[in-house]
Every structure is written in C-alpha cells, then in structure tokens.
C-alpha cells in the first residue's frame, strides 16, 4: 500500500505543489485577516478548509488518473484492486492530516497570524469538520473510483440537480418547504450542537465512530465497485 501512495505522490508532485502554493496563499490571507471575519467559528472554518483541500486532492488525483488513462498502468502493477482502493483512502487521510499539520504550523509560526491556535485545534471543530467531509467524500469517492472523471461530473451535476429540484419544490409547493428544509435544518442544528459547549465526550466518541463507520462503508463499496471496473 505504501508503494501505491508513494507512486501517487511522485506522479502528482507538480499538482500537489501547485495546490500547496494556492493553499499557502489562502491561509496567509486568512491568518492575517482572521479578526475581520465575522463568523464565530472562524478557526474551525480554517481547519475545515484545510481538511477540504486534503480530501478533495485525492478526488482530483483520481480524476487526473482517469483523464490521463493511467489507471490501466496502476491496475497492471503487482497489487490487488482492493489494495489500490485502500491506498486511495489512506492517501486521502494522509493528505488531510498533512493539511492539518501544515495549517497549524503556519498559524503558529507566521508572525502576523491572528488565529488563536488553542481555538483552532479544538477537538470538537476537528471532529465536526471531519464528519461533514466524511459524509461528502464517502459518497463522492466511490463515484470517482467507479466512474473516474465522469463520476466527479456525475456527482456534481447530481448534487446540483437535487438542489434545483429541492428549490423548485420548495418554491412552488409552499406547504412542502418546511418539510423539505427541516432535515437540513436538523442536520445543521446537530452539527452546531456538536461543535458547541453543550456536547459531551460521549457525543464526540459517537462522532468519531460515525466517521469511522462511514469511511469503512465507503471503502467497502468502493472496493466492490473497483473490482468490477474494466479498463
């Protein structure tokens, strides 16, 4: 699995360096101007962005592989398809971890940083960020792994269409608006609760379990889908 991760890092070095440069620019701006942001959860937002960059990189790499038709090369290497998928998941988490460490380091070392690190490294923020991203990427990764670049497009178009349909229904069937929006509202309230002062250690353990379970399910589905993929 380590060889596969190493291969991805070598093949995508330029791409990763470009993202790193863009991320550095964004973080420097954010760290310098943090006090001007009105949102009370701004350090959490910064962490969320860092995780997002890490996780989305993996989808980008997958899509690049599909576009460059190098997936045939990966699948002809001496490793099973299950290992290939497991390596993708491991790489996603590795990149998220790297993004977390990099963001923290910049926040701690840059003299103009206005972010309070003790707030930024809040376990609640981190777990809630990971939960949100896990939900998105648990769906997106199997799509990408099964359908490649087309999968990303399908996912994005699908998400847009669902959003449009929801808006359309909410607008034209006014009575249904509250029902439609209530699950989303409940989810947002739930996340705010988990990130807020009322949540306890038990809640956080449950969040961690949910993250692990979602990842395990996504990994299992992705492996089953990738085993059926033809090149």
């Amino acid at each position, binding site marked *: 699995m380590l*060889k596969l991760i*190493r*291969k991805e890092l*070598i*093949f995508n*070095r*330029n791409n990763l360096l470009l993202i790193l440069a863009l991320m550095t620019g964004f973080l420097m701006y954010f760290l310098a101007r943090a006090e001007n942001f009105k949102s009370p959860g701004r350090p959490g937002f910064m962490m969320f962005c860092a995780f997002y960059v890490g996780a989305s990189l993996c989808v980008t790499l997958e899509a690049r592989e599909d576009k*460059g*038709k*190098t997936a*045939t*090369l990966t*699948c*002809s*290497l*001496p*490793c*099973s*398809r299950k*290992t290939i998928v497991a390596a993708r998941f491991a790489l996603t988490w590795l990149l998220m971890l790297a993004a977390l460490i990099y963001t923290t380091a910049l926040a701690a070392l840059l003299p103009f940083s206005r972010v309070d690190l003790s707030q930024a490294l809040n376990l609640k923020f981190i777990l809630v960020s990971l939960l949100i991203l896990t939900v998105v990427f648990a769906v997106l990764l199997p799509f990408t792994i099964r359908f490649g670049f087309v999968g990303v497009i399908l996912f994005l178009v699908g998400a847009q269409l669902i959003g449009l349909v929801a808006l359309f229904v909410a607008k034209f069937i006014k009575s249904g608006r509250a029902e439609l929006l209530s699950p989303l509202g409940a989810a947002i309230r739930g996340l705010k609760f988990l990130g807020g002062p009322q949540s306890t250690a038990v809640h956080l353990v449950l969040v961690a379990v949910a993250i692990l379970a979602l990842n395990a399910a996504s990994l299992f589905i992705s492996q089953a889908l990738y085993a*059926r993929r*033809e*090149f």
Partner: protein
Amino acid sequence: MMDNILEVSGLCKRYKGFALKDVSFAVPRGTIMGLIGPNGAGKTTIIKLIMNLIRRQAGRVEVFGLDNLRHEPEVKSRIGFVYDTPCFPPDISLIRIKSALAPFYSAWNEPLFRRLLEEFELPAKKKFKTLSHGMKMKFALALALAHEAELILMDEPTAGLDPVFRQELLGRLSGLIQDERKSVLFSSHITTDLEKIADYVTFIHEGAVVFSAAKDEILETWVLVKAGMRDVDVSGIPGLRGYRTGKFGLEALTSDAAAARRRLGSKAVYDKPTLEDIMYFISKGNGHA
C-alpha cells in the same frame, strides 16, 4: 516434457456486438507465441483478461501455474506488460516514472534498466509526452525487461514503429528467450513480424481460436492451392479453409496439405502460405477476388 508458462482455457467475455468464445491455448516456457487476427478479432481482449484489466465471464487463466485472479500480485510481479499505447503520466520524466514503479518489483534490476536506457537512447530526464511513439514503446519495453519478467505480454507492440526499431525489437525478443526461462506473448496483425520470431501462433477470428500450434507445423501442413477454374472443384478440396476466384483462376487455402496433394495431384500447384495468406483466407477468403 515442456511446461507451460501460460494456460488459457475456456475463456469467455461478452460485449455488445462482440463475444470471446471459449478461448483456449497455452504458451510453453522459453518460446514466443504470436497472437494473430484481424482488427477486432479479440486479441486485446485476451491480453486484458490475462492482466485482469477486464472481467471474464467464464474460463481460467493460469500464469506460472497460478490462477491470475487468486494470485494477482504474485503473477503480475513476474509479467512485463507492454501496452499498444503506453499509458504513463504524460507530464513526468522517465526517471521519475521509473522511481515510482521500480519498488513494486522485488526483482528490479537497476543496472539493467540504466543499460537499456542507454541502448534505446532514451532521455531519462525528458517528460514522457515529449517522446515519439517508438520511444514510448522502447521505454515501456525497458521497464518490462528491467524487472526480469518471466512472461512478456505485448499488445500490438510493433504497430506504428519504424522498420529499424521493429527489427531491433524483434531481435531483442528473440534474444530474450535464449535462456529458455522466459516467454513472450505478442499480439499483432503484422504477420511478417511474427513469421520472423514466433515459435507458436494462435489465430483468433471473430472471438474464437481458429488454431493454436507451432508455426513451422502450420506452415508445413497448410498449403495454398492454385488451379484453373475448370480444373478443380472447390468443394472437393480436403481441409478447405477459404478460397478466392479471379481472372487468374482459383486460389484456396487448405489445412491438410497431404490430402490435397493426393486428391488434386498435378491439376494444381502448391505454394507455402504465409501467415498473412492464412489470415486473409480465413477472414475473407470465400468468394471472388
């Protein structure tokens, strides 16, 4: 007894408008087998099934005596695979591609790889996309050879190559099997290449194996019968595989040279067919030219 490095039996794969039907053949160790057939016959499908790049619907593939699915990593570590269009990342230099792929192979031979780069005049620091098709094929071959693969699988490797490198490649493949440990399975529709180096030939047509045998045996037992239209009745030619008629008379391919000679005697003349003749008559040869 000669042991087989690759055994394919009862392989089936269906696509819309095409089916690979019950394909069976074996590649003995220390030999070169040519997989021939017209475009769309199923050659690439067979190679992809051996590499598990596509899923089989029935049949079995054993490489080095191991099932290619159950022992996938082990089997692939001993195969050198050269694609018809090498699919390495375009923006990466050759040396970086090598550094990413070499650790996958425990038998990786770095001095050999360096030597091959020099022999093939490959610029290690150049990006893959800047290479010509021939250079790309050379690089794919260098990678396949540098991990001391026991079975080299090549899908249409000579298509689009200039004659100089084609000759060089064929020479290298012939040299490769001299130790009698390694084998090559080489798909191509350029039959002249195979005539030069193949020990065995498997002919695929419309997804089915027409024959799989030693090349010399095929070229000895098959014969091209040429006769005047009124001298020979086509339906009376034993082992008839295909024929064409034209203003110069009848040309027919038979897989039973001895019986054809006995039956037709001096009414016809007999020529040794080339693999191209065989491919033509089986694919198309059943009517007027």
